[in-house]
């Protein structure tokens, strides 16, 4: 037999139950502009933290057979302003600064002297498309050894001929599939794809794989993070 109560008492029970839901109203803070900005920044920060925690230094990105490659003619060209910033190949070199024992200018030949690694990996764009490409170059980890980089530093930052800039965490920089890429599809890198040197990082989203590199810096503190990151994109964006 049910307990019998009067209407008023029932109302106070249901009102109490309703009030218990008030914590859900905290989500309303997302509708208030100043809070919204901070909350979304914190949410993105948490996602980046989780991404870094999920990243495994020795876990390789999937590699693909030659038959699975996207034809070179269908490999999209994304840039943020120009396809060709007009790099003078004769005068080009990579300027190395920061926490390294041997700073200075490095030629393409010096980079090409390092062991060459060729890999068919997936390039994923933040927009949602992806392609499987064939990339070849020197491991960034080998180059960091060559320049005597302090690998306990937190970041490797690059700057580009088109004023684009990017940075990656040291863990990713040391990943065996992270390349200083100078060849695509067994041909020297073309200008639209970032000649003479670009980053290929199959464990990262596309916008982190900067093209037309001119400067490389090893650092613990970054003056700026990355072109898109500084406009609100994820910093880590590991795949």
């Amino acid at each position, binding site marked *: 037999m*049910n*307990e*019998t*109560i*009067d*209407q*008023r008492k*029932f109302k106070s*029970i*249901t*009102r109490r*139950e*309703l009030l*218990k*839901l008030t*914590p*859900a109203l905290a*989500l309303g803070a*997302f509708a208030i502009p100043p809070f919204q900005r901070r*909350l*979304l*920044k*914190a*949410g*993105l920060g*948490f*996602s980046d933290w*989780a*991404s870094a925690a*999920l*990243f*495994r230094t020795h*876990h390789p*990105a*999937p590699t693909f057979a030659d038959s699975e490659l*996207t034809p070179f*003619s*269908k*490999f*999209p060209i994304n840039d943020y302003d120009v396809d060709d910033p007009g790099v003078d190949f004769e005068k080009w070199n990579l300027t190395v600064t920061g926490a390294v024992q041997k700073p200075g200018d490095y030629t393409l030949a010096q980079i090409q002297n390092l062991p060459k690694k060729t890999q068919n990996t*997936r390039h*994923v*764009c*933040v*927009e*949602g*498309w*992806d*392609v499987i490409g064939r990339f070849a170059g020197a491991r960034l980890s080998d180059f960091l050894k060559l320049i005597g980089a302090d690998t306990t530093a937190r970041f490797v930052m690059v700057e580009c001929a088109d004023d684009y800039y990017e940075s990656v965490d040291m863990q990713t920089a040391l990943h065996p599939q992270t390349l200083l890429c100078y060849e695509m599809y067994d041909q020297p890198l073309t200008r639209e794809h970032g000649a003479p040197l670009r980053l290929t990082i*199959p*464990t990262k989203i596309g916008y982190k794989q900067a093209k037309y590199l001119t400067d490389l810096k090893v650092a613990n503190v970054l003056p700026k993070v990355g072109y*898109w990151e500084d*406009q*609100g*994109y*994820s910093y880590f964006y*590991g*795949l």
Partner: protein
Amino acid sequence: MATQALTVVNNKSGQATEAVYEHPYIVRLCHWINTVALFVLIGSGLQIFRAFPSFGPKIPQHNLINWPKSLALGGWLGGALQWHLTFMWIYIATGLLYLGYQIFSGHYKQILFTPRDVPGVWPMARYYFFFGAKPPAKEPYNALQKHAYTTVMVLGVLSVLTGLAIWKPVQFSWLAWMMGGFHLARLWHFIIMWAIVAFIFGHLVMVVLHGWNNFVSMLTGWKKDPEYISK
């Protein structure tokens, strides 16, 4: 599962009404947080989709749908990603809390569709869609309701798994592989989203048809005068 019930007596008329505590606190809290989270995730997901509204190759690109910006959230791709990558954690957390609660409290018996419910499907479908007679209600949820709620829970889990496969195709490459590859994972994620939208639509129609007492029960937990209690 001990269901609490009360007999509420109106002071003036002396009329007695049964009331049943149908929705425990955790279920209600998760329901309303999830309402917001799904709204945000669907809206921002559609804005993300606008950046490449296709499932084929990028070149040549064939836009599948030109989804209107006014029906999306976040303003631009970067903004939408901020919303999506923030609320996915809220969605996952409430999902885990909800499923954990259902399992450990035994409350799931009220809504889980089991083979026992199969005979009840056709009479209920006949009533809803083909003007059949109304089968007598014996428990809080009928066979079709159980089917809908069980399905949407599975969809919820799949929406997270397909999402993880797209977000982390390297770290969770096995997930993408299970879904038939990275391309298909993105397509599944999209299809599952529409299946959830279809559920929400049906859910809202039923809420309107079932009336005020039913709606209030998701706020207070108590349902007055439930039809499955014989008078």
